[in-house]
């Protein structure tokens, strides 16, 4: 069952390159259904039978490539399939007016999906590297789709950051292999000692992954890339792609290199997160472009993910578990909310023809659904109840109290206020009466898919138990 999740997107990627152009769009829906079905079946299998691994070609771990599916993995697989499906439906309608771009979009979309699935399922450090590189290349291709000069520049900056990041990661992998003679994660988590080689390796990998996750102050490439791309691309990049490198970072800090990391290093990671929250929110508050506002909001929200390290390292087990659960919920809620936000903002931009916030006046009367989707996702991002974002922040705050780390409590609570400050800029303008621009009609499916994503982000507030219970099914390894 496990390899099917890699075979489906790869097969559809190649099909959409080989088949005549008019077929590229037709095969999207069947592919999405297959992918979503396979992810759900795997979820059920893991839920009933427990974690599973799979050795490709029957070659066992040190030599062969093994794939591992536990509760956490399948949660991420399902998240990926669901968000990708909704973004793809949006893209089917959104890209109608982009004739040339849409034929390049679909192969890249499927490759992106394949590499994400590959990263979630990988059970060794080198496969993670290959997954990261494939992910980076397809994401860069998507950013460059329109081949206008700003998009190309953003794609180049993104590509260079991604390449530099992966090489730094690979250098760490080389040191780990040199020291321990294996790259399989289950073996490494038993062997790795807290010596200087491991620490240098973890440091190298962390720098690379921080760059790829766009954590402050290494976030310079993200706003132009995410804010300048086409709306469905921005949604996929902000919701899923940056989470992949964070996932690897968490895996290295809490599992593989757990003995090598120190409490002060974890506090430093938290400080970077706090910097991201402040700097991202401040820039989101200042920018005149609505898509850049959402992109800077991603920079800020990624900062919350970094709270995992100070809240989970060097504290009691109860506090660490809460921090871990809160981080996962934040990852899921942010993925849904940010995808919804980029898609709804994309529809607004399409309707008024450009993206200046000042010109959004009057859209509340003409496009209530898109604005409603934006509002719901903003509720989750701010962490207001009831929403997935609220439960995530609640768990993080409780964890901070339990371990007595009041400074992080202030950062997490204050971040919500900052989020409110920048999202209310949109509401203030859009509810004014005066329409400053001619508003063009857009396809209702565009607003619907954004609304559905936003509803899921809110619904996660009622169903948080689900992913958390599924996540508990680890095969050892992750705490």
């Amino acid at each position: 069952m496990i390899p099917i999740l890699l075979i489906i997107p790869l097969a559809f990627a190649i099909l959409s390159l080989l088949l005549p152009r008019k077929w590229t769009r037709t095969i999207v829906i069947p592919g999405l259904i297959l992918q979503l079905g396979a992810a759900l079946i795997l979820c059920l299998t893991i839920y009933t039978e427990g974690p599973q691994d799979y050795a490709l070609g029957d070659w066992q771990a040190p030599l062969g490539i093994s794939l591992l599916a536990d509760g956490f993995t399948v949660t991420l697989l399902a998240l990926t399939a669901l968000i990708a499906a909704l973004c793809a439906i949006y893209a089917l309608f959104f890209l109608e007016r982009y004739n040339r771009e849409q034929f390049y979009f679909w192969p890249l979309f499927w490759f992106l999906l394949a590499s994400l699935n590959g990263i979630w399922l990988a059970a060794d450090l080198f496969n993670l590297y290959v997954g990261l590189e494939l992910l980076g290349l397809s994401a860069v291709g998507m950013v460059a789709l329109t081949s206008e000069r700003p998009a190309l520049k953003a794609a180049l900056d993104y590509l260079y950051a991604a390449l530099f990041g992966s090489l730094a990661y690979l250098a760490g992998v080389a040191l780990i292999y040199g020291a321990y003679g294996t790259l399989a994660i289950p073996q490494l988590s038993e062997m790795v000692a807290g010596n200087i080689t491991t620490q240098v390796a973890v440091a190298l990998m962390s720098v690379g992954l921080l760059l790829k996750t766009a954590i402050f102050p290494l976030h310079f490439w993200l706003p132009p890339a995410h804010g300048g791309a086409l709306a469905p691309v921005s949604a996929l990049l902000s919701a899923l792609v940056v989470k992949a490198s964070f996932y690897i970072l968490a895996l290295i800090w809490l599992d593989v290199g757990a003995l090598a990391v120190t409490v002060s290093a974890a506090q430093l990671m938290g400080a970077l997160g706090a910097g991201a929250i402040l700097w991202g929110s401040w820039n989101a508050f200042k920018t005149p472009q609505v898509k850049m506002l959402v992109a800077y909001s991603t920079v800020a929200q990624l900062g919350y993910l970094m709270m995992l390290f100070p809240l989970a390292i060097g504290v009691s087990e109860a506090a660490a578990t809460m921090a871990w659960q809160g981080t996962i919920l934040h990852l899921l809620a942010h993925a849904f909310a940010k995808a919804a936000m980029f898609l709804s903002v994309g529809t607004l931009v399409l309707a008024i023809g450009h993206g200046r916030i000042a010109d959004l006046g009057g859209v509340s009367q003409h496009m209530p659904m898109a604005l409603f989707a934006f509002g719901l996702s903003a509720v989750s991002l701010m962490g207001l109840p009831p929403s997935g974002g609220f439960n995530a922040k609640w768990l993080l705050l409780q964890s901070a109290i339990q371990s007595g780390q009041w400074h992080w409590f202030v950062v997490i609570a204050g971040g919500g206020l900052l989020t409110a400050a920048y999202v209310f800029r949109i509401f203030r303008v859009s509810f004014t009466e005066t329409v400053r621009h001619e508003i063009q009609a857009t396809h209702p499916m565009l607003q619907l898919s954004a609304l559905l994503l936003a509803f899921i982000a809110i619904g996660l507030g009622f169903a948080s138990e689900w992913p958390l219970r599924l996540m508990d099914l680890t095969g050892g390894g992750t705490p």
Partner: protein
Amino acid sequence: MGVDLWYALVGAVIIALSVFAFISARHLMKKLLAFNMMGSGVFLIMVGLPQHQHGVDAVPQALVLTGIVVAVSATALALVILRRYVRSGGDPAP
């Protein structure tokens, strides 16, 4: 000092030099060259360092081969985008 450490040291020096070049160079083409050099340094460590355990090891050779394929395709993509960018009037040395 064993052969394995020599490889690792030379690799580290190459990486350090190319990181410096990657950060200090302004021309995007020079940055791309620096990236490729940095890759060579990483591959040298990858093949050289594990030798201290049981001689020449096949696994890192296979890994490096994959790494080279990835680096070549990344370079190709970078070249295509860079060329498009320059043709559309962009400055290659911003």
